[in-house]
Structure formats: C-alpha cells, structure tokens
C-alpha cells in the first residue's frame, strides 16, 4: 500500500463512518431514544421499586449493582442493531453496490460499519449513563478498564451484527439473533444478579457465556468488584474480536450474500 493509497483509504473510511453515524442520527427517535426510555424503566422498576426489597447484591445496593449491567445491555444491543440493520438495508436497497464497485477494500468496509455500530453503542451507552445518574451515583473505579471494555464489547457486537447482516435475507432474519440469542445471553450474563448466587453447576454453565465476562469486567471498571479474572475476560473479548473479524472478512471476500 503506497502512502497515496493510505491517504485515500483514510478518506474512504471516514466517509463510511460519517455516513453510518448520520444514518442513525437522522432517525434518533427510532435509534437512540427507545433504549434510553427502556433503560429508564428498568431503573425505576428493578432498581427503585423491586430493588429496595432485594437489599444488597455482592455488597452493593441492588440499584448500584444493576446500573453497569444495564449500560452494557444497551451498548451490546445497539451496537449490534445498528450494523445489522444498516448492512441489511444496504443490501436490500442495493446501495451496498456503491461500496462494492469502488476500490474500498473489504477490511475497510468492515471497519466503517463497525465504526458506525460502536458510535451508536457508545452514544446510547452515554445517554443511559446520564439517565442512571438520577438513580445511582456514578463511581468509576478504573477509567482504562471501563473505557476499554465498553469499546471492545461494542466492537464484538458490531462485528456480530455485520455477520448477521451478511447472511440475512429478510427483515425477519435480522431480529432472530437479537431476540433468541443476544437478549437471553445478556439477561443470563449477570446483568441482574451475581453468578455467585447460582448453584455450582449453573455457575459453570454461565461461564460459557461470553457476555458474562464483558458485563463483569465493566462492572469491575465502575465498582471495582468482579467474580472472574480480568485477564481471562480480556483474552476472551480479544479472541472474539479477532475471530469475528476474520470470519466477516472471509465472508465479504467470498461475496457471501452480496455477490451472485
């Protein structure tokens, strides 16, 4: 790659990311507002109304315990949703062809869509965090851990959304994964409870759920407590990023879902 091409590629990447950000920003009432409203309801119901009867979880007020998990839940679902719907509709309306005929390498197409997904994930994450301030004081135990794990988790699910978008053939296909895989795994990933409450067998099963590691690490970043090893968590997250990226690149290089 010559320096000239590097410069061109940088322009191309910026173009894709800007376009992706504008896409969800234009329709913020459909993309940013709903998760914020939903999370506010979670805070009120689980944290405020029910939480006061639950008492403590892992030594924290129940409300304080669930805030990190709910922020993560919002980041995960929005990173995923942004890329899966953007990529699928670009296939559906065929404007993915604008990218396919251009000299933008597939790696940059992936980066661009992932950039858009991360932007939406973080936007919603920040908005939910702001709402949470009404219910729970924000404490940050470790800024590097908090930021790194939220960005990396967002990347994982943006990539997963992209892969879903590549395979999707109908609008049904883009809601199957979030409904039947993503949401259950997140709910069972320690958002609402500490896995240490589970009997031994179910604790072991839970440890097969990658989202558990992400939520726990994020909670560690904010509260300074975790049931799991940080290093194992980071290793798992990085392995997912690399694995999903390689898979997505392979799909695009083969033209799966986009070239006949």
């Amino acid at each position, binding site marked *: 790659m010559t320096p000239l*091409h590097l*410069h*061109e*590629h940088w*322009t*191309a990447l*910026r*173009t*894709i990311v800007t*376009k992706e950000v504008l896409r969800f920003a*234009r329709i913020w009432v459909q993309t940013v507002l709903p998760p914020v409203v939903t999370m506010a309801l979670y805070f009120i119901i689980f944290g405020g109304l029910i939480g006061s009867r639950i008492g403590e979880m892992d030594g924290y007020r129940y409300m304080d315990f669930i805030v990190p998990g709910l922020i993560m839940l919002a980041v995960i679902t929005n990173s995923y949703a942004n890329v899966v719907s953007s990529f699928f509709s*670009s296939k559906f*309306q*065929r*404007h993915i*062809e*604008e*990218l*396919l*005929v*251009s*000299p*933008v*390498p597939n790696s940059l197409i992936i980066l661009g869509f992932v950039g858009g997904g991360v932007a939406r994930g973080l936007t919603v994450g920040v908005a939910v965090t702001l709402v949470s301030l009404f219910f729970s004081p924000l404490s940050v135990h470790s800024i590097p851990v908090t930021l790194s794990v939220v960005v990396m988790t967002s990347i994982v699910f943006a990539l997963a959304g992209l892969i879903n978008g590549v395979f999707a053939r109908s609008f049904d296909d883009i809601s199957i994964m979030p409904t039947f895989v993503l949401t259950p795994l997140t709910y069972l990933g320690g958002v609402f409870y500490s896995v240490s409450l589970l009997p031994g067998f179910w604790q072991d099963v839970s440890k097969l759920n990658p989202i558990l590691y992400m939520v726990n690490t994020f909670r560690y970043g904010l509260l300074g407590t975790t049931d799991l090893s940080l290093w194992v968590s980071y290793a798992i997250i990085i392995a997912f990023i690399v694995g999903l990226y390689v898979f997505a690149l392979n799909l695009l290089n083969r*033209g799966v879902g986009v*070239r*006949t």
Partner: protein
Amino acid sequence: MRHTGIAQEKDKDQGMMTAALEIRGLHKTYRNGFEALKGIDLTVAPGSFFALLGPNGAGKSTTIGIVTSLINKTSGSVRVFGHDLDRDLQEVKRSIGLVPQEFNFNTFEPVGEIVVNQAGYYGIPRREAWRRAQHYLGELGLWDKRKDMARTLSGGMKRRLMIARALVHEPRLLILDEPTAGVDIELRRSMWDFLRNINCDGRSIILTTHYLEEAERLCRNIAIIDRGRIVENTTMKSLLTKLDTETVVLDLLAPVQQLPVHDSIVLRGIDELTVEADIHRGESLNTLFHLLDKEKIQVQSMRNKTNRLEELFIRMTQAPKTRGRDMQTSQ
C-alpha cells in the same frame, strides 16, 4: 467536461492499442445452474462509444456485473485498460464508472451526499468531492436538488443522479446499463447529448440497450448478444451495410389490380389498400415514386416497416430453423 486531460495523456503514452475493455472466453453459470454467458469475447477500443445490444435476458447485465465486480465470473478473463480483473482489481475499479440498470442508491440520503460519498469511497477529499458534485450535478440539472432526499426525484432524475455518481471519480470508462429505460423522449435526447459530449472529451462509453434507435444514434461500435453469446461485434457502419434492403409500407387511395415489376424494387400486395416495397440498397426512392406514377397508383401515406437495425437484429438473433421458415413464407 474538462477533467479528462490526465487520463487521456496517459493513454496516449501507453499507445492507443490498450483496449478499454477486453473480454475473453467469459462464462457465467448462476447458482441455480443457469448458464447466462456461454463464452463471450469482446473488445472495446479506447475512446469508443460502444453499444452492447440484445433482447431481455440475453446476458447484458450479467456481463456488466462481472466487469464491475458485482457478479463473480465462472471462468474467462476481463481486462480494463490492460488491468486484469483478477490480479489488479483496484485499478480496474478505479477505471470504471457504473450506471446500473436498477436504482441502487439510498433513497433516504440527500442527492448531494450520495455523489460526495461515492467520491469519498475513491479517496477524493470532501472539498474536492463537492466541487465535482457541483459540476456534474449541475451539468445534469440536479444541483438545485442537492439537499433533497433521493426518493423525491422523478425516474429520469434518479437516472441522472446515478450518472453524476458514476462520473464523480472521473473514470476512463463509463458503463451504462439500459440508461434510458423509463426516461421520456425529451430527456432521452438531452441525455444522449450529454453522453456524446463526455465521449468527445475522450472517455470511453459502453452502453447496453434493447432500444435500437439508441444504439444507432449514439454508437460507432456495436456488439450483439443473444442467449449468452456474442453474435456480432463490429462497427455500426459495417453492420448497417449488411442490410441490403429496406421495406416501406404504402397506404393506397384506391385498390390496384396489378403491381408493377422492377429489378431492384419488389412490390407485394398485403391487402387491397396496402402494399409493401422492398427497396434495394443504393436505389433511390424516386425510382419507387416513378414506378408508382407510371401505373397511376395513388399513395396516401408511407412509412418504414421496421427500423433497419431491428430487422437485422431479428435476423441475427432468430434460431436458424425459424429463420429458414420465415424466408420461405416471405418468398
């Protein structure tokens, strides 16, 4: 259009012989087993205005799709200005601008941004991209619409938007797949003028069409494709000279009993008030009128039976068996 200088200079340096497009032995079998291209060879000279003509389903869009890397080929080779599609994909992509048959932009994006984003994909910085967008959208009468959502444009405007988008990175080869489908007559004319100008500036153009007048009016070179095979690849002029007769239909004022006989004009009665005349190439229409005058045959009106190209086209693309039968019945 004043942006073609550099590309053309380079072309001259490398010698004018590098074809704008060279296709060899191109096959395409779709996943369902349908063989859409059965070994296509095609050469398009640099600077030419080239028509790929064929009926619906002939394989035009499949060919264009492979050249623009939207469709994977099954076998064969494609070179664009000497760059091989398999080895030098990026250069091939940089050399081509595509106006596809179906609208393929985001209808919820503003017109200007569609063009500017496309420039961005080719690495053109935003300020320069807007300058070019202004130029091409302006030439195509869309600059005033730059802030409108693409979905609010009429069909003809959408087509022109795709032309501006295809030109924004100033490709040396512009490919248009059925560009005037659904565009009304007046707009069609101005689009043709626009394309002619672009071609005069040195850009090579390939257009596919099943609209014969378009090919005849615009293109100096032509290939005819039918059921996945190229049946002809030549200049428009030499193709037209292959036609030795032209048929006109005469509507008469009064019935005639006996039709005159002539060496190079064959008259046939269709019904009592309609006569068809096959006029041999090189024969003047005055001869026909003279002949009719002599027999006191009064003609109310006259029209061409078919576009000549169409006739040729039908002859070339009909299965040999049908063609034989047709010739028998018409004799």
